[in-house]
């Protein structure tokens, strides 16, 4: 851990203070990745800039067309917001799969994105929700689709000192699922995970997005698969077709966590189950 940890109270104060700190600095949000890395000797920073005091990052706001989630909102805090429960069914479904209760109490949505792990559960869910990420550098804002933020494992397009301030998720009338296959019942890094968001018109899929975790160098948008099921009836046949196609879109690896061929196959199994689950719900709702 570095000798110096600085905790600005406002964004304005942050931009003012940054030039006075050593260039070997990092933002500290929930610390669940950063502190672990530091303890393992993988962090060579001179200073951490603790952004957990930035009020601007702490809340969820609702506009007419979107939900804005502050980057500093803790994972455990997400569910408390009615707008999240109402408009973000995939993210809501992902929360119980996210690490452990104690880690959810610390980890933030922004940190989950900035860490840029292909296995990030909240990020994968937000990608399926079609979130945009909002970044700020010295008062200058820019935005891009969240899925476009990632360049590779632990690599993003975030510039030096640029800060993720929020995620903007469009309000669209969708349902969905988050299915994860981890090393045990809960509290583990996924071998594969599927986030599915679909908008239905009767039993027809009007619009769909599919994101996957841990099966590509980045949180992956399965664009072809989403395209393939759009316009089709939500049915076991559609689910099977989607499962077959998604396996061709992913590029998993073999590592200490799992095997490439297994992961590829599981993408199909999970997506099929996600779609079948939506179909069952649709039937149950009549």
């Amino acid at each position, binding site marked *: 851990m570095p000798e110096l940890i600085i905790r600005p109270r406002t964004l304005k104060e942050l931009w003012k203070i940054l030039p006075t700190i050593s260039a070997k600095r990092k933002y500290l949000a929930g610390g669940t990745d950063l502190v672990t890395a530091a303890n393992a000797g993988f962090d060579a920073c001179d200073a951490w800039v603790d952004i957990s005091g930035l009020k601007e990052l702490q809340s969820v706001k609702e506009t007419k067309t979107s939900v804005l989630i502050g980057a500093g909102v803790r994972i455990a805090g997400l569910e408390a917001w009615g707008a999240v429960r109402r408009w973000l069914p995939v993210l809501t479904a992902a929360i119980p799969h996210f690490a452990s209760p104690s880690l959810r109490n610390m980890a933030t949505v922004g940190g989950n994105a900035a860490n840029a792990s292909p296995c990030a559960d909240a990020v994968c869910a937000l990608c399926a929700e079609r979130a945009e990420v909002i970044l700020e550098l010295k008062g200058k804002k820019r935005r891009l689709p969240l899925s476009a933020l990632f360049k590779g494992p632990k690599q993003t397009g975030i510039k030096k000192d640029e800060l993720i301030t929020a995620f903007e998720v469009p309000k669209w009338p969708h349902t969905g699922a988050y299915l994860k*296959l981890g090393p045990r019942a809960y509290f583990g890094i996924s071998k594969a995970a599927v986030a599915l968001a679909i908008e239905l018109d009767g039993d027809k899929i009007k619009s769909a997005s599919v994101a996957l975790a841990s099966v590509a160098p980045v949180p992956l948008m399965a664009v072809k698969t989403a395209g393939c099921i759009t316009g089709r009836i939500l049915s076991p046949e559609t689910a099977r077709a989607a499962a077959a196609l998604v396996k061709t879109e992913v590029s998993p690896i073999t590592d200490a966590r799992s095997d490439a061929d297994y992961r590829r196959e599981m993408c199909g199994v999970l997506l099929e189950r996600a779609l079948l689950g939506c179909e069952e719900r649709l039937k149950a709702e009549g």
Partner: protein
Amino acid sequence: MEKLFCVGKSVIRKDALIKAAGRARYAADYEFAGMLYAAAVRCPKPRIRILSISDSRAKKVPGYVTLVTYKDIKGPNKWPLVINDYPFLPETEARFQGETLALVVADTQKAAKTAARLVEIKYRELPFIDDPLKSMEKTAIKLYGEDNVFSKFVIKKGDAAKALKEAHTVVEEEFATNYQVHSYLETQGVIAVPETDGGLTVYSSTQCPFYVLDGVAAAAKLGYNKVKVIQTVTGGGFGGKEDVPALVAAHAAICALKAGKPVKLIYDRKEDFNSMSKRHPSWSKVAYAADKDGRITACVVKYVLDGGAYSTLSPIVLWRGTIHAAGPYKIENVFIETYAVATNKAPCGAFRGFGQPQICFAQESLIDELAAKLKMDPVDLRLKNILRPGDKTATGQMINDSCGLEELIKTVRERTNWDDRVQNAKYKMQNAGDIVTGIGFSAAYYGVSLGAKGRYLDRAGAYVNIYKDATVAVNVGNTEMGQGALTVLSQICAETLNAPYKNIKLEEVDTSKVSDSGPTVASRTTLMSGNAIIEAAAPLREKIFKTAFDMLILKGADAAKPMSASDGVFSIEGITVSFAEAVAECWSRRLKMGEQGWYAAPHTSYNMDDGQGDAYVIYSFSATAAEVEVDLKTGVVKALKIHAAYDVGKIINPTLAEGQAQGGILQGVSWALYENLVYKNGIMLNPNFTDYALATTADKPEYDITFIEKPYAGGPYKAKGLGEVPLIGVAAAVANAVKNAAGVRIKSVPLLPEKIWRELRNCLKVTPSAP
């Protein structure tokens, strides 16, 4: 027999409050004036020639004190254990990634860690071996002796080859198991404090303070009477704090002697993973032969343990595995050959079950395959062949009356509705969709304590001291590591003295207070220290009981009537004297109120040439059934419920026994299904809890645990030993249940979803109509 007031009762743990309230002091919590910190410099590759070690960069770290290398070791550079091939610190060659090469001492932990990273090691990489079977090949590079075999054993009984040839049915399979990491919450930790007489006091998180004493005295070249080892509250051991704390303590000791100040050495999780002991990975080939009625006529086993870079406890781990390798069956013809082999990976050692769970997984899986081939129910097959009193084990030892295996198996069969489930298809019919359920069985026996191979260590001492106020201090040489020893031993002492339980205090183990009592391993503490306490307490009991009787007579009791003693009260027909009053009277009579006790295990024998003999004094037994569900699409297994029955003799504390059983089962489920340490090219890939997954409470099965107490006359209050028993049969039961549920035989632990998925896919290719 007299009614017991304390033994057999679920009294509250002695350490419950301090642990629940966070007041327990672990090694890391101790502070001493002027204390320094050590950090290890570790070997980056599986095998290297050390060319030089330089601290020229490390020196610049503020707070840096000194570098410690093998040159600072005062005695011979060999850690005294079993074979003594492990140097305290390597001189020219290091043999596994993570091996301690040197240590850095600094005035803060952070400075020590930072400086350790800056120590420059110049080295040349050497060829290495990571596969034990390759290590046994003639052409393999030599890591140990002429054949890379640390240790080998054989058991020969009858003519197994002939019996195999003539048998009605033969099954033979190869099995493998992976590592298991102890995953104690508290990593290795020690503080060595130099004393004014040139000696050392060592505060160590350990199961075996006397091993620490051996290690520190050797490295520091000090007389044993100048080294005092005090066990700190130990946050879990499971075998992982049997041998290796001695190495860690020896390192701290030489740092402390060089710096002339107390030195604290606390491992972080990664270095603990990388360098400390593990359950041995194993490979085995097992064959059983049976006649047409299902009588097992022969068992042939070849069993290989991956010992890692140094032998540590491999020889005795292997020996226990060897003795139990044929399973708890009476078999006329047995041939078992076993090997512990050197590789360039972390040295493996003790882990709950000590070489037994690996081979039990193999042979109990194969027993089910034998039953299938014979078209017999696997429980019936077991009942036909198990050891009963009067039967002889693979080593020719006759089983005595303290054997409840048959009752255990029948109990579990009944409690699982076994016959209904296995023979009646209706349970299978309920399976819907991708999820199928199944049930599997296993049986095991366990030789309590150290047995013939460790008999020279199999003794224990106790000192029981009764103060004037009738409180009692007890010193023993075996440790509490979470398993409940403080409580169980207090109960034994209270019962023997007729003292109130609350009056008894077990002291922290201090090697200067009690004679070398051997290690706290092999489920031996209740038996060994319990008997030692009884021996120490017996003369005290006599004095107190006589004094209490005298006092009762003085108070007008009828001397012809029997005196009863229970829960700290002595009475004759309603006239009473308390334990405290009796003790006060003893003191005023100037009686000796402190006594030593000593217990040495009865004789065992073992012939190295044919493996015949009375290997252990007494055996505990277990029967385990696992109910599982298997997801046929993902291969994910969930252990739903574990039914188990144990004969471990008298249960001293039912709640603690239940806890030990539940913990052992969950650790067994965790090993069977989840724990997967991965090495690639001699480098450990997942030395952390992020990627080394163990079972959590969410993976916990439902437990159905039954104790059937077959008294052991030689045990304290007729107890045997429990700690390891519940883990041993779990993996086999789970694997048998997976076979029952999904139709696939997984022959390696852990039963990862990937393996099951692959097997299921292979089945589908062969028979498209399969599930």
